[in-house]
C-alpha cells in the first residue's frame, strides 16, 4: 500500500499541495506548443536515411507542388544562416556542434536535412515525404567494437578532466586477499519526456519570441541570439510549463534556430512539433558505457584497492563525456585508487545529459562490483558497506559536509525486512517464483549555481516571486513559493510564483539537481532584504503590519545569490546564459553529496524467467527537505526510473547501419503502471549547514542512482546468475 504525503518531521517543510496542480488537472496549464500565435505556418523536419556520407542531390519538385507549401530549407539555401554552435559542456549553449543544413555532410542517422514549411501540419508532412534525397553513403561506425571508431583518453581531450587516483593500486590489487575483476555494460537510453520537442518562433520586427519547453531560459536566450547573430536583448524565451525534460531540454538543439529562420523567411510565426521518432536523433541521449571495475579487499572485508575504468560513446566531432568515476572513486574508504575514462567516437548524434548523467551508469558498475565482493567474502552486502564507510573521501582526504548513508541503509533495511533474507543465491522461493533481495547505495553531488530573483510584498498581503527558473515537474513553483512564504511569515495561499520566461531575473539551468538549492537561497535573501528594509528582524515579526504602518503600497527587492567558491563574475555569466555550478566534488575544502540506500525484491519465474519487481524501498538523506510531498514524488519517480534502467530501457542500434531501430514508445520500453507494485520512500532527517545557507541538497536525480545495481544484485540473489549487461532480459536469464 501507498501512504499519504509524509508529515513534516525533522528539518522538513510543510507538504503543501503543488502550486500548479489545479491548472494541470483542469487542462489549464499551457505548455510551449499550446501557446497561441497569430496565423502560424507549420514546419516538418526531413531527416537523413544514412548515418555517414554526403548528400549528392535534393529534388524538391514534387514537394513544392504539394498545395500549401510555403518554403523548403536545405543546405543549398541555409548554409550560412547559423553562426555559432559551441558545445554546452565546453561553455557554449548547444548540445551538439553538428549544425544541420550547413553543408552536404551527414554526421549521423536522423540528422535534419530539410525543413518544410506549409499552411498546415499535414501539408508540411506530406511535402516532407516527397523531398527526394540522393546520398553517397559511407560505412558508418555504430558503437564499441565497430570498425572505424576512434578512442581517446578523456584527459587528452579535455583540459579540466582529472582521472582520480591515489596510492598504489597495482601493488595493492596484486597482493589483495580477495578480488573482483568484472566488466559491465549500460545501454543507450533516450529521455523520452512525454512532451515532444516543440518550438514556436514569432518575430515582431527584429524581436523574436521563442516558445519552447526548456530547462534553460537564459541559455536559450543567449544561445539562440548567438546562433542567429543578433543581440540577446532581441530574444525572449517563454516556457511556463515543461512536460518532462530529464536533461533533454537543457541545452540548445539545432531545431530552434532553424525554426526562427523559417519564421523570418515566411514572414509569420512558425510552429514545429517534431515527431517522437525524430526526437531520438534531433536531441541528445544517454550514451552506452563499458566499465571495468576491479576491487581488492582483505579477508575481513576491508577494501584495499579500487580501479574503475570507463568507455563512453560520443559523436565524431564532439568530446562529450559524463566521467562518473569522479563520484565512484570517492564513495568508500580505500587507500589505493585508480581510474580512467575514455571516449569512443562513432557516427552518432552527440549524447548529452540524462537524469544523473555520470552516476546512473557508473554507480551500476561500482555497486554491482561491491555486491560481487560481498559474495566473494561471504559478508552481508550492507555490512561490507558499513566496514568501508567513511566521512572523508579518499582521493584528497576532504571531509563530507554530511553523509548519512548508513542511517539510510539501517532504516531502509528495517522497513524492507532485510534480516529475513537468506544469503545464499536461489535459496528463497515462493511457489514457481525465485525470490531475490538486493540493495545498493545511491549518491548525488550537491551542487549550487548563482541565481537572481525579485520578490514583491503588496499591501493586500500578496507576495509575488519572479525568476526565470523552470517547472519541469520538479515542483519548482511550489518550493520557491514556500520558502518565500516561510521567510516572510506570509500564508502560502497568498504567494504567487512566476517562472519560465527570460524577461524575469536570471536563474541557472535546471540540471544537476541545482534548482531548489540555488533559487530558494536567492529568494530567501530577497525576503531578508524586505525584512531589513521594514526593520523587522524578529522572524516572527509581522512584515505586513510594518508595511502598512509605514504607508507603503508595496515593497520589492531584487537579490543575487552566489554560492561559496564560484569565481568572480559568475553573476554576469549567469545573465549571459552560463550556470557555473559549484559544490559536489568541485569545492577545494570539502565534498558535498546526498545519499540513499535502495532495496529491491525481484521475483523470477523458474521456467519462463519472467522478472517482476513486487517491492521497492528507498531511504534518502538530503539535508533540508523543503516539501516532503513533492520530494517524495521526485524520489519515487527516480526509483521507477532506476528499475526501468535495469529491466526496460534500451535504444537498440542496427550496428551495420548505425541507426536506431526502436524509435517509438511501442518499442522503447518504459515501465507502465502494471510494472510497478509496492514502492516506499523514507526521508531520513539530516541537517547540513555547510552546503548552503538553507541546508538544501538537490534530490531530482538522487532517486534513480544505484537502483539498477540493486535490481541486478536481487536477480543474482534469486537466480545465482550475475548479469553485467543492462537491461536484464528473460532471454539472458534463460541462456
Amino acid at each position, binding site marked *: 500500500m501507498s501512504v499519504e504525503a509524509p508529515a513534516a518531521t525533522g528539518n522538513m517543510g510543510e507538504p503543501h499541495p503543488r502550486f500548479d*496542480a489545479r491548472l494541470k488537472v483542469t487542462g489549464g496549464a499551457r505548455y510551449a506548443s499550446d501557446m497561441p500565435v497569430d496565423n502560424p505556418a507549420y514546419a516538418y523536419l526531413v531527416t537523413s536515411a544514412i548515418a555517414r556520407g554526403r548528400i549528392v542531390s535534393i529534388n524538391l519538385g514534387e514537394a513544392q507542388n504539394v498545395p500549401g507549401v510555403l518554403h523548403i530549407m536545405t543546405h543549398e539555401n541555409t548554409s550560412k544562416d547559423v553562426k555559432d554552435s559551441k558545445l554546452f559542456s565546453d561553455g557554449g549553449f548547444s548540445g551538439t556542434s553538428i549544425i544541420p543544413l550547413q553543408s552536404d555532410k551527414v554526421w549521423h542517422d536522423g540528422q535534419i536535412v530539410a525543413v518544410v514549411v506549409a499552411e498546415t501540419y499535414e501539408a508540411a508532412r506530406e511535402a516532407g515525404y516527397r523531398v527526394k534525397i540522393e546520398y553517397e553513403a559511407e560505412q558508418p561506425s555504430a558503437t564499441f567494437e565497430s570498425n572505424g571508431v576512434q578512442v581517446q583518453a578523456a584527459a587528452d581531450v579535455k583540459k579540466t578532466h582529472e582521472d582520480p587516483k591515489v596510492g598504489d593500486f597495482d601493488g595493492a590489487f596484486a597482493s589483495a586477499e580477495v578480488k573482483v575483476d568484472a566488466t559491465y555494460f549500460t545501454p543507450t537510453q533516450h529521455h523520452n519526456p512525454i512532451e515532444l520537442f516543440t518550438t514556436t518562433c514569432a518575430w515582431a520586427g527584429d524581436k523574436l519570441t521563442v516558445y519552447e519547453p526548456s530547462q534553460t531560459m537564459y541559455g536559450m536566450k543567449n544561445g539562440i541570439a548567438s546562433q542567429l547573430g543578433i543581440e540577446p536583448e532581441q530574444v525572449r524565451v517563454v516556457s511556463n510549463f515543461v512536460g518532462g525534460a530529464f536533461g533533454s531540454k537543457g541545452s540548445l538543439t539545432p531545431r530552434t534556430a532553424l525554426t526562427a529562420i523559417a519564421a523570418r523567411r515566411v514572414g509569420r510565426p512558425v510552429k514545429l512539433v517534431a515527431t517522437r521518432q525524430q526526437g531520438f536523433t534531433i536531441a541528445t541521449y544517454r550514451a552506452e558505457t563499458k566499465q571495468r571495475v576491479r576491487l581488492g579487499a582483505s579477508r575481513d572485508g576491508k577494501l584495499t584497492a579500487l580501479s574503475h575504468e570507463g568507455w563512453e560513446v560520443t559523436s565524431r566531432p564532439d568530446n562529450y563525456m559524463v566521467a562518473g568515476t569522479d563520484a565512484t572513486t570517492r564513495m568508500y574508504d580505500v587507500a589505493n585508487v585508480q581510474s580512467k575514462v575514455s571516449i569512443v567516437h562513432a557516427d552518432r548524434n552527440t549524447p548529452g545529459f540524462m537524469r544523473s548523467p555520470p552516476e546512473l551508469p557508473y554507480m551500476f558498475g561500482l555497486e554491482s562490483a561491491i555486491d560481487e565482493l560481498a559474495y566473494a567474502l561471504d559478508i552481508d552486502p550492507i555490512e561490507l558497506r558499513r566496514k568501508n564507510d567513511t566521512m572523508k573521501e579518499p582521493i584528497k582526504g576532504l571531509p563530507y559536509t554530511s553523509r548519512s548513508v548508513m542511517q539510510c541503509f539501517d532504516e531502509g533495511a528495517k522497513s524492507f525486512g532485510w534480516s529475513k533474507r537468506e544469503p545464499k543465491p536461489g535459496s528463497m522461493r515462493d511457489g514457481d517464483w525465485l525470490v531475490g533481495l538486493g540493495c545498493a547505495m545511491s549518491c548525488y553531488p550537491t551542487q549550487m549555481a548563482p541565481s537572481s530573483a525579485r520578490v514583491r510584498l503588496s499591501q493586500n498581503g500578496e507576495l509575488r516571486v519572479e525568476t526565470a527558473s523552470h517547472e519541469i515537474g520538479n515542483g519548482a513553483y511550489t518550493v520557491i513559493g514556500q520558502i518565500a512564504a516561510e521567510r516572510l511569515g506570509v500564508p502560502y495561499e497568498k504567494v504567487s510564483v512566476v517562472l519560465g520566461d527570460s524577461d524575469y531575473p536570471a536563474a541557472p539551468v535546471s540540471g544537476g539537481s541545482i534548482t531548489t538549492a540555488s533559487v530558494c537561497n536567492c529568494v530567501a535573501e530577497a525576503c531578508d532584504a524586505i525584512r531589513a528594509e521594514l526593520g523587522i528582524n524578529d522572524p516572527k515579526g509581522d512584515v505586513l503590519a510594518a508595511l502598512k504602518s509605514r504607508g507603503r503600497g508595496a515593497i520589492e527587492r531584487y537579490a543575487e545569490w552566489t554560492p561559496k567558491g564560484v569565481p568572480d563574475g559568475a553573476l554576469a555569466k549567469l545573465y549571459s546564459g552560463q550556470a557555473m555550478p559549484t559544490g559536489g566534488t568541485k569545492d577545494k575544502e570539502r565534498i558535498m553529496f546526498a545519499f540513499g540506500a535502495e532495496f529491491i525484491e525481484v521475483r523470477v519465474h523458474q521456467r519462463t524467467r519472467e522478472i517482476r519487481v513486487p517491492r521497492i524501498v528507498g531511504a534518502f538523506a538530503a539535508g533540508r527537505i523543503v516539501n516532503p510531498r513533492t520530494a517524495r514524488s521526485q524520489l519515487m519517480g527516480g526509483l521507477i526510473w532506476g528499475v526501468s534502467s535495469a529491466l526496460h530501457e534500451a535504444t537498440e542500434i542496427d550496428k551495420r547501419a548505425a541507426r536506431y531501430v526502436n524509435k517509438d514508445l511501442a518499442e522503447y520500453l518504459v515501465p507502465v503502471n502494471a510494472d510497478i507494485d509496492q514502492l516506499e520512500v523514507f526521508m531520513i532527517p539530516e541537517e547540513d549547514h555547510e552546503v548552503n545557507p538553507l541546508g538544501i541538497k538537490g534530490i531530482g536525480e538522487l532517486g534513480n542512482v544505484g537502483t539498477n545495481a540493486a535490481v541486478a544484485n536481487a536477480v543474482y540473489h534469486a537466480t545465482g546468475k550475475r548479469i553485467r549487461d543492462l537491461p536484464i532480459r528473460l532471454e539472458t536469464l534463460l541462456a
Partner: protein
Amino acid sequence: MTFRNALTLNINGSEHEVFIEPHWTLLDVLRREIGLTGTKENCIEAECGVCTVLLDGKAVCSCILLAMQAAGRSITTIEGLGTPDALDPLQVAFLKHGAVQCGYCIPGMILTAKSFLAEHPGTPTRHEIREAISGTLCRCTGYQKIIDAIADAGAEGAQAAS
C-alpha cells in the same frame, strides 16, 4: 486545391462548427481549430494515451480518430470535466494525493480513469486500476500516487451511489 468540409462537433456540451479537411484527426481539430489545448499531443500512434478524450463517455485516443468520425457524438475533453467551483471527484483526488508532476499525461490519465470508473462501478482493486491505466504513460512515473487518487475517487463514487 484542398477540400474542406463543414462539420459540427459536440464538445463539452457545446456545438462547434468547423471547416476541415477530411483526413484531420480529432486531436488536431481540438487543439488547432477549437483551441482546446488541454488534450495533449505526443506519439500520434495510440501508444501513450496523452491525447485521450471521452467519446460518448468512453476513453478514445483522439490522435488516431478522424474528426469526421466524432460527428453526432458527445466529446468530452479535460476542459469539460467538472466546473471551476466543483471539480470532478477525480480531479479533486489527483490534487489531494499530489498525483501530478510535470502534468503532461494528467488530462489523458484522468479521462482514462473516468471512463474506467464509469464502466466498473464499485471499488476496483489497485491491481485492476493499474491494468486499466497501463496504456497511459507517465514519464515522471508518479504511478503510485495516481493509483491512490483513482482508488480514492472510485471509493467515493461507490459511496455516493450506495
